């Protein structure tokens, strides 16, 4: 199946949506979602870099001869990036929980002990 440039457009769209969310939303949970969207966009971009049309999984053992393989490196990068993303998202959400406990709100405009 040939997808053409569609996945790249989708990943750019995800990044732009994520940046929009970061800039214009006030709820902390939505900010975490925005970060997550950007991350997904970047990960999709990385996977697409290594994709070859009609490629098979890059495992040499028992691989049929002459078949095209997708590139393994971007997949390794994506895996690492997903794991890092899990850690950052978990950390961000736990900070959001503690902010809720301290201030009773998740609205960024009402949490402003640190200004100037």
């Amino acid at each position, binding site marked *: 199946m040939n997808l053409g440039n569609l996945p790249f457009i989708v990943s750019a769209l995800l990044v732009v949506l994520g940046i929009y969310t970061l800039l214009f939303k006030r709820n902390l949970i939505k900010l975490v979602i925005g*970060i997550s969207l*950007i991350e997904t966009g970047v990960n999709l971009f990385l996977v697409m870099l290594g994709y070859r049309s009609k490629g098979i999984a890059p495992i040499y053992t028992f691989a049929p001869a002459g078949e095209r393989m997708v590139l393994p490196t971007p997949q390794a*990068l994506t895996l690492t990036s997903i794991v*890092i993303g899990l850690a950052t998202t978990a950390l961000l959400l736990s*900070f*959001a929980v*503690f902010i809720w406990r301290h201030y009773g709100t998740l609205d960024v405009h009402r*949490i402003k002990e*640190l200004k100037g």
Partner: protein
Amino acid sequence: MSALSVHAPVLLIAIPLLGAFAVPLIGKLGRGVRDAFVGLIAAFTAALAGLLAANVFGNGGAASVYVLGGKPFDIPLPSGMTAPIRILLEVDGMSAFMALITALVTLTAIAFSFSYWRERSGGSMYHSLLLLLTAGIFGMELTGDMFNFFVFLEVTSIAACGLIGFRVWLGRTQEAAFKVMTLYTLSGLFVLLAIGLLYGEHGGLNIAYLAHSLSGGIVDKIALGLLLTGLAMKAGAVPMHMWAPDAYGEAPAPTSAVLVANSQASLYGLFRVLFTLFGITVSTATTGWILIVFALLTIFVGVTMALVQSDIKRLIAYGAVSQIGYMLLGVGVGLATIVTKPTYGFVAMQGGIFHMVNDAACIGLLFLVAGAVTRAAGTRDLNKMGGLAHTMKYTSVFFIIGAFALAGVPPFNGFASKFLIYEASFKLSPFLAIIAILSSILLLAVFVKAFQGAFLGPKPASLGGGEAPLGMLIPMAVLALVVIAFGLFPGFFVERIVTPAARALWFGRDAYISAILGG
């Protein structure tokens, strides 16, 4: 001994990393055992950094490669193509210089922490995160691979935000940690996107290999823009600085010093990208002037915001932001003139790079003093303090030394590096030097005001404040000695460690590439 010096680059990353995960276990054996273990790890890491620096600078700052796995890294593929594989660390004068700074700051911060955390809980977590942050910073400075750079960048982000936010009983730390984590993650994703673009364009992740095949096409330029934004954001350059005062201000005082070292590691990444990765394949006049504009904004905004602070740590934090600008100014002037290579361009490079170690020493000293002061006084508000010099004699002297060095008053170290920056940037454009000098004078005013508020005048009766314990005074004294030594003998240090570092960036692109690719 020789095995130790051969394997120093990887041990610098591995030992703090293993230490970080062992600390919570060893902490179960008791506080004394844990502190001894952490101290041992920190001292050994610092000794390794010294050994690495001695090797590299003994070699004139030439680039050397360390291969993980111990086998050759340039095995030809079946198709006949040769590309560097395996995990590679590449160390040149600049990397060794940064490793020295990191070792100095982390060793003094960890030594200070033993007294600072004596009466508080959570010490095991704290030391674990601090060692993890150290490992990440060393990783960023020594790696020869873009993707590993990204991984270590994220290690420092997560460890740094853990350190800022682990005191969950304080609301403001949570607010700061959330903000910092959001911006750190965003900057990391920019860097990752740029790495993806470079990989897609050139099919490699090794810095030397990428530098060799870069052509300065449109994709490379987009990647450069993303890297510049991401790394400047993580270094705290204005206008992406809004996380920095929160991070430095709300982290425990000894950690703030290490966070500044972390920002400097991002700055190192930025310089590595601009000089070694891209170099002259893109217009260096443009990239140099972009750095200079960032630098002037950072200097000016940092100082003017410091002027209005009444919280002692936040005031020092804005001072730290402004100093990032001086480093950017020096190196920016160097980058803008790299094609014609005039003498003053190299002087500017020396000034900017020399200022990194000077800033690490004097900002580190000021944050440690702020930690001692807030611990003794029980408040961070300068309006509620006063007269602390009566009881904290040594601490107040250390504050003066740090403040004068930061503002660039002779004979302290800040003057030595700032003077090189003024001199060289004046030759490029007098306007740059005027902004830089005026901001330094303003900074002096800020710190005189802070000194007067905290240490002079009558002491409020409710204010606590005995002299800091010896465990805190010794790390401060070490940093103060560094400040004075670098101020009194700048020529010695510039010649021994700064010039090889500046040379590695300014002239060393081809050497960096050929250390990996040969020829």
